[in-house]
C-alpha cells in the first residue's frame, strides 16, 4: 500500500487550488482598523516584517582581476560635455554629395578630372594592357584564397536561402589589384617619378575640426596610401569661383545623420612623421565594401558612394595639412591636394581634392575644390563560368587614369 494515497485522501488537489484562486480574487473590505488602532496609540507592524525581518548587509566592493568596460555615461573616462559629430569608416552621408559639399565647403566638379591629369592619361601599349589583364586574372580569378562571402538575399523571394558561397572578398580583390597596378606604374614610370613615391599600407588618419561652433572628428582608414617627397601642385587658384553657390539642403542641417556622441577622444593622426621625406599624401586607395551601409540599412546610392570618397580625401588632405603647417592651422599657406581612387574590385572611381582652407565656417569665402568621375568598370565579368575562368569586357580606361594619377606631381 502506498502511503501517499492515505496522505492525499483529504486533499482534493485541483479543486481546492482552483477554489483558492477564485476566493483569492475577492476584494477585502477596508475596515480602517489600522487607523483605529493608531488612534489608540497601538503601533501597527506588517506581519511580514516580523516573520522575515530585513537584514541590513554591508555592501562590499570586490575588485575583479579582469578589466571591465566602463559604463557609457558621464562617468566614462572619455566623457566630454561638448557633443562631437563623428564620421567613421563604415558610415555614409544621408544626402550624399550635396551634404559633403556643404559640410566641407567644397565646390564639386562632377564627371570631370582636372585638365592636367586628363593630359597625363595616355593610351597604353598592348603589352601594358596585357599585363593589366594578367593582374586582373591573378587577383580576381586565380587567387586561391577562400573566405566566407556575405549572405545573399533576393528581395523578390525573401524566404529563399542561397547556398553559402566561399570566395574572394571585395577587400582582398581591391587590395590585390591596387598592389599590382602600383607595381606596374613603378615599372613603367621614369625613375625621377618612381624614386619620389612611397607606399604605406593600412594607414589611419583622424582629423578633428570645428565648423559653425560644432565639433567634428573624421577618421579614415586607407588600405593603400601613396606618399611623395614633393607636394602635388594646386590645380586651380584658391580664389577662383568665389561667388559660386553651394547646394541647399533646407530643411535639413548639413550635419544630419552624423553620429553624435559625448564619449570620444580628440586626436590628430597622420601616418607619416613630420620630419619624414615622404610627408606629402599623394594618392589614397580606398575600398568600398559590403560593410559600408546606411544607418537605416536602406540601399546605398551612387551619390553616397562618391560623397564617402570626398570625405575620406578631405580627411587625408586636412590631416596632411595639419602635419605640415601645425595642428591649429586655419588658412593654409598653400593648397594641399590629394588624389583618391575608390574601388570594389570591379568598378573604379577617381577623385581629386584640393584643400584650400580649413576655415569651414559658413558658406562664403575661400572654398575647397573637388573633381570626380563616376564609377568606371574595369571589366564586365571576371570569374568562373561552369568551372572555366572567364574575363570579359576589359576596359583600358581605368589603368590609364591610375597611371596618370601616379605620374601627377
Amino acid at each position, binding site marked *: 500500500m502506498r502511503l501517499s494515497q492515505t496522505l492525499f485522501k483529504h486533499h482534493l488537489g485541483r479543486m481546492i487550488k482552483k477554489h483558492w484562486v477564485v476566493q483569492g480574487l475577492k476584494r477585502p473590505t477596508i475596515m480602517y482598523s489600522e487607523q483605529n488602532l493608531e488612534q489608540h496609540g497601538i503601533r501597527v507592524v506588517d506581519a511580514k516584517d516580523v516573520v522575515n525581518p530585513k537584514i541590513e548587509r554591508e555592501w562590499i566592493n570586490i575588485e575583479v582581476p579582469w578589466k571591465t568596460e566602463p559604463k557609457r555615461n558621464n562617468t566614462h573616462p572619455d566623457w566630454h560635455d561638448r557633443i562631437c559629430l563623428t564620421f567613421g569608416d563604415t558610415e555614409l552621408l544621408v544626402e550624399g554629395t550635396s551634404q559633403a559639399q556643404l559640410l566641407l565647403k567644397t565646390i564639386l566638379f562632377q564627371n570631370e578630372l582636372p585638365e592636367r591629369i586628363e593630359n597625363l592619361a595616355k593610351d597604353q601599349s598592348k603589352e601594358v594592357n596585357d599585363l593589366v589583364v594578367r593582374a586582373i586574372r591573378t587577383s580576381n580569378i586565380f587567387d586561391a584564397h577562400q573566405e566566407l562571402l556575405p549572405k545573399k538575399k533576393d528581395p523578390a523571394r525573401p*524566404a529563399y536561402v542561397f547556398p553559402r558561397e566561399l570566395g574572394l572578398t571585395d577587400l582582398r580583390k581591391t587590395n590585390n589589384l591596387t598592389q599590382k597596378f602600383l607595381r606596374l606604374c613603378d615599372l613603367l614610370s621614369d625613375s625621377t617619378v618612381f624614386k619620389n613615391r612611397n607606399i604605406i599600407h593600412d594607414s589611419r588618419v583622424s582629423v578633428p575640426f570645428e565648423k559653425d561652433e560644432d565639433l567634428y572628428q573624421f577618421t579614415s582608414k586607407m588600405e593603400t596610401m601613396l606618399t611623395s617627397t614633393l607636394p602635388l601642385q594646386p590645380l586651380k587658384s584658391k580664389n577662383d569661383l568665389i561667388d559660386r553657390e553651394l547646394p541647399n539642403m533646407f530643411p535639413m542641417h548639413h550635419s*544630419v545623420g552624423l553620429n553624435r556622441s559625448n564619449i570620444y577622444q580628440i586626436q590628430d593622426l597622420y601616418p607619416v612623421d613630420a620630419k619624414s621625406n615622404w610627408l606629402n599624401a599623394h594618392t589614397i586607395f580606398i575600398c568600398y565594401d559590403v560593410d559600408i551601409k546606411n544607418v537605416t*540599412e536602406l540601399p546605398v546610392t551612387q551619390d553616397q558612394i562618391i560623397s564617402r570618397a570626398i570625405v575620406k580625401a578631405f580627411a587625408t588632405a586636412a590631416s596632411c595639412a595639419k602635419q605640415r603647417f601645425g595642428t591649429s592651422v586655419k588658412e593654409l599657406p598653400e593648397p594641399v591636394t590629394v588624389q583618391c581612387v575608390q574601388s570594389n574590385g570591379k568598378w573604379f572611381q577617381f577623385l581629386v581634392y584640393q584643400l584650400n582652407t580649413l576655415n569651414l565656417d559658413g558658406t562664403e569665402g575661400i572654398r575647397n575644390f573637388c573633381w570626380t568621375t563616376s564609377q568606371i568598370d574595369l571589366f564586365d565579368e571576371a570569374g568562373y563560368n561552369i568551372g572555366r575562368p572567364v574575363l570579359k569586357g576589359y576596359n583600358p580606361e581605368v589603368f590609364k587614369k591610375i597611371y596618370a594619377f601616379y605620374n601627377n606631381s
Partner: protein
Amino acid sequence: MSAGVLFRRVILVGTQILHSSVLKLPSGHSLQLGRSLWRHVEVPKPGVAGKSYRRIVHFPKEYTVKPLEVTNLAGRDPVTGRVVAKGIGGGIKHKYHWIAWKRDGPTDVGVKPKEEKVLEVFQDGCRTAFVALVGTGRDLKYILATENMKPGDVIRTSCAIPRNPVRPAEGDAYPLGALPMGTQVHCVEKYPGAGGCLIHAAGTFGTLMRRDGNDRVILRMPSKREFSLHQNCMATVGRLSNVIHGSTPIGSAQRNRELGNRPRSGLWQRKTGRHGRKIRPPPPVRKFDHNTRSSQSVAPIRLSLNV
C-alpha cells in the same frame, strides 16, 4: 503481507522522507514530483492593450532610425511562456522601424509650420503601410507614408489652431481643430500629446464629420464608428499608402507561412460575427477623454495557496 514486512516498509518510507527533508536533496528531485501536479497559471488574453504576442521589439532609450532587433514570440506570453494566441509562428524575421508617432511643431498661430523633407519611402515587414524616412534639422525619423508621398516632398507640421481652417496638403500634420470638415486623416491621437495611435493600416483613412461642442471634433473611423476627440489631438492628413493591400490576396499557403501565420482550418465560425455585422443602427459616438481614461478600477488583493 505480514505485519513485520508492513512495519519494515513504513520504517523504510519514513527514513526516505526523513532523508529527503533533512539531507536536502537537490531541487531537481522536488521538481520531478511537481510535474504531474496541477498548478493554476494566470494567462493574459491576446489583443488586450494592443498586445498580439507576435514579437517583442528591443527599444533603446533614445529614438533612433537604426532598424531594431526583435524577438518573435510565436503567440506565447513571455512571462508565463504559455501559448496565448494560436496560429502565430515562423515566417521571415523583419527588423522593426521605430515610427516617431508624435509630430511636433510650433504652437503659435503666427509662426510658420515646421518643414520636413521626405528622403525615402519603403516597405516595412512589420506593418502593412509603407514607411517614409524624413529629415529636418539634424534629425532623421520615420513616419507612415501617405498614398502619394514620394522622396523630395516637403511636409509641414503645426500644433496651432488658427481662426480659419488651414488648407493642408497630404502628409501634413495639424490638430483636428485646425482642419476643415471632410478632410481625410490618419495616425490620429486619442488624447492630446499622446502620439498618433488611431488608423495605421495600409490604405485606411478617417474622415472629419462635424464639431462636437466648442473643443471637440467627431471623426469617422475606417470601421464607420464615430469617435469624439479633443480638438488639440494631432492628425496627419491624407490616406495611408499601399492602398492595394486590402484587395491583394495572400496568394498561397506558403506565402501565409512567410507572413508568420501557422496553418489553420475551420475559418468559418457562425457566431463570431467576423464576416460582417448584423444591420443594426450604428453605435453611439464614443468619447475619448482624459477623465474617463484615469478612472481605472484598483486591482483586487490576491490570496494564494502555496502547496
